[in-house]
């Protein structure tokens, strides 16, 4: 039961209301709060305990499965790293798709990893225009509002919470072949090369392949099979690796660099309380999380104080301050660089040992009797020159230290009291919010081995300073006259952002000193400053009649410094209505309906967050033609033209319809929330394509249109409800349909590698050749190919092994976008025991798994093969789906690497036990809860090893695997 305060008066009538009735829940929305029942827009609230129950370090990782319409990536397993989020589809092509993050009412520019998840009271995801139009130029991709905990009236509550946990890989490794299979496949690749590239006879090719195994696999030193030399390992009569070959070592590189029990612990102290007038909340937090990869770690020290005070009846003030220091140790490498262990160690030849071996295959020990890391100096073949993954992780160092300070303060003048006469309900508020961040980053490449050994080590230092502030003044008027209620708001806001970057690097360092001063050779020195400002005027009008009909309209006018002064002002607006049918007289007799409302909204939002051509960095100077001065020629200043002027470039607009039904039935045992949305992005910021021969591939222009639409539902049912038992189940599902409506006249299609963005199709549709199996005669990869007539229609389809022809015969083969995704969660409580389970699912869509391809169409002899390569074609007549083995072969990129993206994941299971009240009284405590949880327990996909949530466009990369974490903890309140 909810607690209710009732004033003492004669004949008090107390109506008990159940917890399930959440309709009058107050939620945080743009520039204020709203009752859920009166809200005309679409927003989801995620309560703090849902976040707290998971051992997450970055709050973005808590969102998956908690709200409909929100798609998330898995995020890297590097402790502290964020997951990415898109709300209701993919808002843009060349502008950012990220939502706006707002903390305590002010847009947030700190790092998300600096927010202590335990400080969060709730998160609200604003999904439609009615909810988000007040964020104007920044609201089109949705808004995630984070509200921190405030003190509550009453005695001081002290809460101590500690958890300890152990992490391991959440996604299993790909199944790779073993040493013997590897030799067998390498031998066949060599033989096939001689047969099919150099036109040897089969027998000659076999002999040549046997003889060239040694050079390709690293000579006898790297031959683990000490009972056979490389030229004898293949039995010439069978063409197979000899069965009795005995390996002297088998040292998996990945095993040597991953911890299976990376330790994570977190401690949190919270004090809160207050009087009727003044309330406060203080918190201190400490987190230390080791990554599963050697040398990676994240530590966070956080402190927060939130105070609000009602000084007089008409004067209120509040101040929230948070300070966070965090330190992240990470590995600086990515992609297919040797030093990126997620590439090299994960897909390395299984023959290569971790430790130096002698010719007999025994470890060569150092003077202390320890095995020595093998850097390949004795002639490991291929390009992994002077490299050992473990040595590299230990010797190279990278960290980033973030210091984030956030301030949210404001005061309100005015009152709802009758004493104020005509001023009743009129309030003026001024709010000031500031985020300040310095990041101190270091990347060091060591002086003993690898890239920078000859240079004596190379050290990069970065220092960046970010400061942003928002200052607003808001006038509100809130009055009811009989059954009519009004809430009117008008305001002005100014936002300023400044980012200063400084970097320097030197090589030839002093051993043990990771500072620039002793270094002798400057290799880099750079600095710049970026500025961004927005000025805004906004207003909102709310009207309700008899808690039955609600109407809402809002408007915001933004001027952004990104655009030319003639095109920088834009107007964004929304209107919405909500009809609570259940309040109508004709519904009075329908007892099983507790609440039923329908709502409708439409509005226009904006997006000014244009990105540079790298698709990551923000472009603050979109319209200007500029010379980039980063091209000094020796001692002469040098510049190159970097952009073309287009004064007219402006906002991306987003027209957003939302229709929703909310129902609560059977005495609140069943609640259903269903919505349909249709978002049309117009004036989409595209790089208007230009011929590369003009020196530019395009210029920024507002030209395209795109649509995202879909259904969302959330069904929550209480299955069992007795005094001891409570069991509820929540099922969420969302769909998203994306269609590119218009690009440019010049180019109705933008092709980028394996992706096509084409009018009439979903964004990032896979566009590549189509496999037609394997030629039984030669083992060659076959493709579908076609000819086209003058109108571009396909005339004649046929099968060919010509990869050039296949490259010209590409097909549209679907996209990553799922048909349906969502979550199923359940909570079960029995007496003091509680169990919650969260699972997520996604059906449909495809992923182009480049990692899988990389281990099936190997580029180098030191790459390992996926187990599926064992199905390869071996001799004429074989019928199979895997072509003959080749190394460095040439293939057309084809749909063999498109994997069904559907998955089912058990994200979290938490079991908790609250100690009986009777014990508490004795111990003079208010409560103790102990709990255990497992996060990212299991993932079921169509391909073992693949991360189905690597990104939104459906590719994969050599990146830090997400973690599975087992943890235990307790919370004491007194």
């Amino acid at each position, binding site marked *: 039961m909810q607690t209710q305060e009732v004033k003492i008066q004669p004949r008090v009538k107390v109506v008990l209301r159940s917890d399930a009735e959440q309709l009058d829940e107050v939620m945080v929305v743009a520039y204020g709060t709203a009752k859920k029942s009166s809200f005309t827009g679409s927003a989801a609230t995620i309560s703090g305990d849902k976040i707290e129950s998971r051992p997450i370090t970055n709050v973005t990782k808590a969102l998956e499965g908690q709200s409909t319409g929100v798609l998330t990536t898995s995020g890297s397993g590097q402790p502290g790293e964020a997951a990415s989020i898109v709300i209701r589809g993919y808002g843009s092509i060349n502008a950012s798709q990220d939502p706006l993050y707002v903390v305590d009412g002010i847009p947030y520019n700190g790092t998300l990893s600096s927010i202590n998840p335990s400080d969060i009271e709730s998160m609200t995801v604003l999904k439609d225009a009615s909810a988000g139009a007040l964020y104007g130029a920044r609201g089109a991709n949705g808004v995630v509002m984070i509200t921190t905990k405030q003190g509550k009236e009453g005695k001081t509550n002290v809460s101590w919470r500690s958890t300890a946990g152990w992490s391991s890989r959440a996604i299993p490794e790909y199944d790779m072949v073993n040493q013997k299979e590897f030799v067998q496949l390498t031998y066949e690749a060599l033989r096939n090369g*001689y047969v099919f*590239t150099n*036109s040897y006879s089969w027998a000659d090719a076999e002999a040549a392949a046997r003889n060239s195994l040694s050079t390709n696999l690293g000579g006898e030193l790297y031959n683990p099979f000490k009972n056979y030399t490389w030229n004898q390992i293949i039995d010439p009569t069978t063409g197979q690796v000899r069965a009795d070959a005995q390996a002297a070592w088998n040292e998996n590189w990945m095993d040597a660099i991953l911890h299976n029990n990376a330790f994570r612990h977190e401690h949190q102290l919270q004090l809160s309380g207050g009087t009727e007038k003044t309330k406060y909340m203080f918190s201190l937090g400490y987190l230390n999380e080791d990554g599963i990869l050697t040398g990676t770690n994240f530590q966070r020290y956080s402190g927060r104080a939130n105070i609000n005070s009602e000084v007089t009846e008409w004067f209120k003030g509040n101040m929230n301050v948070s300070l966070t220091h965090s330190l992240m140790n990470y590995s600086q490498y990515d992609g297919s660089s040797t030093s990126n262990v997620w590439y090299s160690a994960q897909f390395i030849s299984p023959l290569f040992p971790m430790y130096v071996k002698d010719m007999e295959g025994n470890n060569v020990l150092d003077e202390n009797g320890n095995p020595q890391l093998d*850097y390949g*100096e004795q002639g490991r073949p291929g*390009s992994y*020159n002077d490299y050992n993954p473990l040595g590299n992780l230990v010797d190279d160092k990278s960290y980033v230290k973030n210091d984030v300070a956030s301030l949210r303060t404001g005061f309100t*003048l005015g009152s709802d009291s009758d004493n*104020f006469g005509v*001023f009743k309900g009129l309030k003026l508020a001024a709010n000031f919010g500031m985020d300040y961040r310095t990041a101190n980053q270091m990347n060091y490449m060591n002086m003993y081995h690898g*890239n920078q050994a*000859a240079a*004596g080590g190379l050290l990069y230092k970065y220092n960046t300073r970010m400061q942003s502030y928002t200052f607003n003044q808001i006038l509100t008027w809130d009055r009811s006259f009989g059954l009519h209620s009004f809430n009117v708001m008008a305001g*002005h806001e*100014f936002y300023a952002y400044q980012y200063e970057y400084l970097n320097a690097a030197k*090589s*030839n360092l002093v051993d043990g000193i990771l500072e620039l001063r002793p270094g002798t050779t*400057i290799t880099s020195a750079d600095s*710049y400053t970026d500025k961004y*400002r927005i000025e805004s005027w906004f207003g909102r009008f709310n009207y309700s009649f008899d808690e039955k009909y609600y109407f809402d309209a809002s408007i915001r006018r933004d*001027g952004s*410094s990104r655009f030319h*002064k003639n095109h*920088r002002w834009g107007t964004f607006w929304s209107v919405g209505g909500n009809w609570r049918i259940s309040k109508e007289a004709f519904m009075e007799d329908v007892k099983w309906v507790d609440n039923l409302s329908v709502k409708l909204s439409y509005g226009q939002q904006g997006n000014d967050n244009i990105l540079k051509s790298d698709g990551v960095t923000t472009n*603050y*100077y979109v319209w*200007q033609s500029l*010379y*980039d*001065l980063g*091209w*000094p*020629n*020796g001692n*002469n200043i*040098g*510049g*190159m*033209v*970097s952009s073309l002027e287009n004064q007219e470039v402006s906002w991306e607009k987003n027209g957003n319809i939302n229709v929703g039904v909310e129902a609560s039935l059977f005495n609140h045992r069943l609640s259903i929330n269903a919505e349909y949305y249709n978002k049309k992005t117009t004036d989409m910021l595209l790089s208007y*394509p*230009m*011929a*590369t*021969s*003009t*020196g*530019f591939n*395009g*210029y920024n222009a507002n030209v395209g249109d795109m649509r995202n639409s879909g259904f969302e539902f959330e069904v929550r049912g209480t299955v069992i409800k007795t005094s001891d038992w409570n069991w509820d189940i929540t099922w969420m599902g969302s769909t998203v349909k994306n269609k590119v409506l218009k690009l440019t006249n*010049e*180019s109705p*299609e*933008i092709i*980028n590698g394996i992706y096509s963005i084409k009018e009439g199709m979903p964004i990032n549709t896979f566009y590549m050749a189509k496999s037609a199996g394997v030629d039984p005669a030669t083992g060659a990869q076959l493709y579908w190919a076609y000819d086209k007539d003058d109108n*571009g229609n396909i005339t004649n389809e046929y099968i060919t092994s010509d*990869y050039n022809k296949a*490259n010209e015969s590409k097909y549209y083969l679907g996209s990553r976008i799922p048909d349906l995704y969502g979550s199923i969660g359940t909570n079960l409580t029995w007496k003091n025991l509680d169990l919650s389970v969260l699972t997520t699912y996604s059906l449909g869509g495809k992923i182009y798994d480049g990692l899988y391809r990389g281990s099936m169409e190997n580029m180098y002899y030191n790459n390992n093969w996926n187990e599926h390569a064992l199905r390869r074609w071996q001799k004429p007549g074989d019928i199979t789906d895997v072509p003959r083995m080749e190394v*460095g072969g040439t293939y*057309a990129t084809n749909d063999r690497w498109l994997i069904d993206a559907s998955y089912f994941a058990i994200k979290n299971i938490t079991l908790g036990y609250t100690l009986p009240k009777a014990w508490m009284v004795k111990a003079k405590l208010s409560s103790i809860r102990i709990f255990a949880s497992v996060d990212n327990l299991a993932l079921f996909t169509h391909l073992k090893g693949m991360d189905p949530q690597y990104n939104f466009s459906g590719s994969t990369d050599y990146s830090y695997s997400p973690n599975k974490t087992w943890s235990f903890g307790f919370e004491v309140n007194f």
Partner: protein
Amino acid sequence: MKKILKYTFVGLMGCSVLTSCLDSALDTAPTDSMSGTTLLSNANSALIPLNGIYRSMYTSWSPTDNTHQSFGINSYTIMADVMGEDMIMDDMGSGWYWYDCLYNVKSRYTSSAWRSYDMWNCYYTWISNANYILAAQETMSGTTEDVNYVIGQAYAIRAYSYFMLAQNFARTYKGHEEDPCCPIYTEPTVAGTAGQPRSTVQKVYELITSDIQTAINKLTDAPAQKYKTHIDLSVAYGIQARIALTMEDWNLAKTAAHNAIEASGCTVLPVSDFLGLNDVTAANVMWGAPIQNDQTGMYASFFSHMDAVDELDVSQKPYGNSARKQINKDLYDNIMLPTDTRKQWWDPTNEESERGADAGYQQEKFKFSDYSTWLGDYIWMRVEEMYLTAAEAECMLGDETAAKNDLYAVMSKRVDGYTTSKTGTALGATSSQRTGSLREEIIDQRRIELWGEYGRIWDLRRLHQGFRRTATQGWPDAALLNNRPTDDSECYMWVLTIPQSEFDGNVNMDLSKDQNPTGDYK
């Protein structure tokens, strides 16, 4: 109390008006860039955009990936060398250049990480940057000489860029004048500039020859070379000589080469005086890039790909160690004279190659000046090339005495007592079909002298010669190209495909009609 409230109200409203800052608060400008109008207003600051172009001639930037094999002029020289028969890639190493060497890049035209996009984008970026400078020709303040210095170089850069485009995206000039080549732009690009259709080879060469002549005219009346990367009069003549050679305009090739020699003041140096070819201050260097500490490309650099640093006791080796660059043994053993001092540019012992005796001979010609800091200057034009160009032109003009004089100018510093009695201009259909002519001799010396510096495939193409790689030359089996028509100089193997991004943005070019053949012939 109500009064206080009222006053505060008014005060706050006032504040809010004040913070509704002036609209100018919304005018922001970057700190790492500036507008072109200012830069091009006078001849002094106009050196900034000019220097920017030169910097990009030895920096990685053009493709979106695979940048380690794309760092301006020298990276394309390596590419053009490994496409021929004289520079052997011992192994694929990390894969850089391997796909050029195997002629396996044309099908990758949809990707912006490979040669099609890389080269197209690179040269056209230089052209568009040059066009901005040329557009300011009339308004640029400064002395005539100073303006000429800027404008002359911009014309030369444009000529050079179109010349390189023509050599890579169409078959050679002679015999293919009416083939489609590349689009022409001579005006500065603005937002919405329409893409042009492909012009013919003839039209493109007309622009090239006129641009280089204008450059020469301007640079004749201009200050001396201010920095070694700058194209001065001698370098402009040198570029003109290269163009004329490719167009088989022997008269112009001869005079341009001689003019270049004279204007440069450079002298032919004995091999021992410029070992390592890493110093642009050497007396034979006309054009090149001094490389300084903070402007090296590290791995993405010329010496990283060439130098195996076998002699250094360092654990980490550059790409040149795993993907060794070696000379064709036929050229070294059978064509180069035993007493040729250039023999020291290669090491015939084959000690370090994994392929042992099967391998070609390791190059020692190009060496880092300091591997620990990745230093080593890039040489773009040496005076020896001009003598060899003049010699070939004179041979083709029938003036064999003059030809031999120019040949001896180089060879006297290479081989003690060098003479040749060869005569005639006959060349084999492939480079291994020997004719014994004087022209062949001049070309042979050119193959040796300019190994790694000119781009062998561009010479082969203008000579209308094919080639065959063999195992005895030292080529690895994987790169023999037995099944490919390398012996047919008319095939399209060496004609690059045009990148997809061009078709995406150019209404005047249609992928199905205007793309070069993606295969060897069609």
